[in-house]
């Protein structure tokens, strides 16, 4: 093991006891014959867990739990009241007396049926003149065809026709 790799291991796995036996043996063999690395290890030990051994752990202040509890309860109340508010609005909108609802439905249906029927009638009468015009044209043609049949020819009896025929 070379000095550099050795020192890296010292700063982590070796100091923290997180090193497998094979690596540990290698490192200790190196330490036995390298004075510089032994010196480095002494320095490294002073920055490992040993340095922090006497640090004081303090508990969070008492009032902190009360503050957290209060916040939780307040938020819970707020979310309850906002949910209740939504339900209340839905309830107000859906509060219609039943006879009134039935009447409203009947009136709506009458209006829909009445409007549809009116549109139908209107559209029928609107088509009448066109149909009549077309029918008149067919009558005219049939009258002309009557002339043709009396002449025994297929002509339309026009001046141009007469000239050429």
């Amino acid at each position, binding site marked *: 093991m070379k000095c550099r790799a050795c020192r890296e291991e010292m700063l982590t796995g070796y100091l923290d006891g997180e090193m497998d036996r094979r690596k540990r043996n290698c490192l200790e063999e190196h330490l036995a014959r390298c004075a510089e690395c032994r010196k480095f290890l002494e320095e490294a030990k002073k920055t490992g867990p040993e*340095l922090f051994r006497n640090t004081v752990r303090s508990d969070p202040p008492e009032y*902190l739990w009360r503050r957290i509890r209060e916040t939780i309860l307040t938020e819970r109340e707020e979310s309850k009241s906002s949910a209740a508010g939504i339900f209340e609005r839905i309830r107000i909108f859906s509060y219609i007396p039943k006879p009134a609802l039935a009447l409203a439905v009947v009136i709506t249906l009458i209006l829909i049926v009445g409007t549809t029927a009116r549109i139908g009638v209107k559209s029928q009468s609107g088509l009448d003149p066109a149909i009549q015009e077309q029918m008149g044209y067919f009558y005219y043609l049939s009258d002309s065809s009557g002339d043709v049949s009396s002449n025994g020819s297929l002509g339309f009896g026009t001046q141009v026709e007469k000239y050429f025929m």
Partner: protein
Amino acid sequence: MQDIITDEVLAKAAEGDIAAFESIYKATSGFVYNVAYRVVYNAHDAEEITQEVFLKVYKGLKNFRKQSSLKTWIYRIAANSAINYAKKTAGESRRRDDFRSAVDLRQVPAGTAAGTPRRYEEAIEMLLKVLNPDQRLCVVLRSIEGLSYREIARTLKVNINTIRSRLKRARSKLITVRKEVVGDEM
């Protein structure tokens, strides 16, 4: 901790039982508060972080599926909240801290810094402040809270080699500044 917080307590807390949640708080708040304090080094900020953590835990308990242990889950929230807070406020306090550290390093005579518990804590604070928030968190979790590398990696959701690397850099830095800050007393 897992022994103290039974499945029943956990289930009740998840349903919103405040008394059950209090027992979770009592079992874990020491860790959360101390980690937060050591990362931000300000009691008021540590309280804020602790409160934020437990509000998140309370809300998240409904969806907690025991895929990780409760301890790891709470530790993760605490670590992330502390680190985010430290990074967010780093810009604001960097100038002040750099100035203060420089002054402190000159004023604390070598060999006397660790003489009293208060001096010792001040020296530890100065040393940890030399590290960046990620390195500081790793040192706190390993050297003060005593978590294993595997536990730290799970808590922070990073590779175990990343933890080794952060610790290595942190300790290299500490070797350089330790003598200036505390002398040979510690």
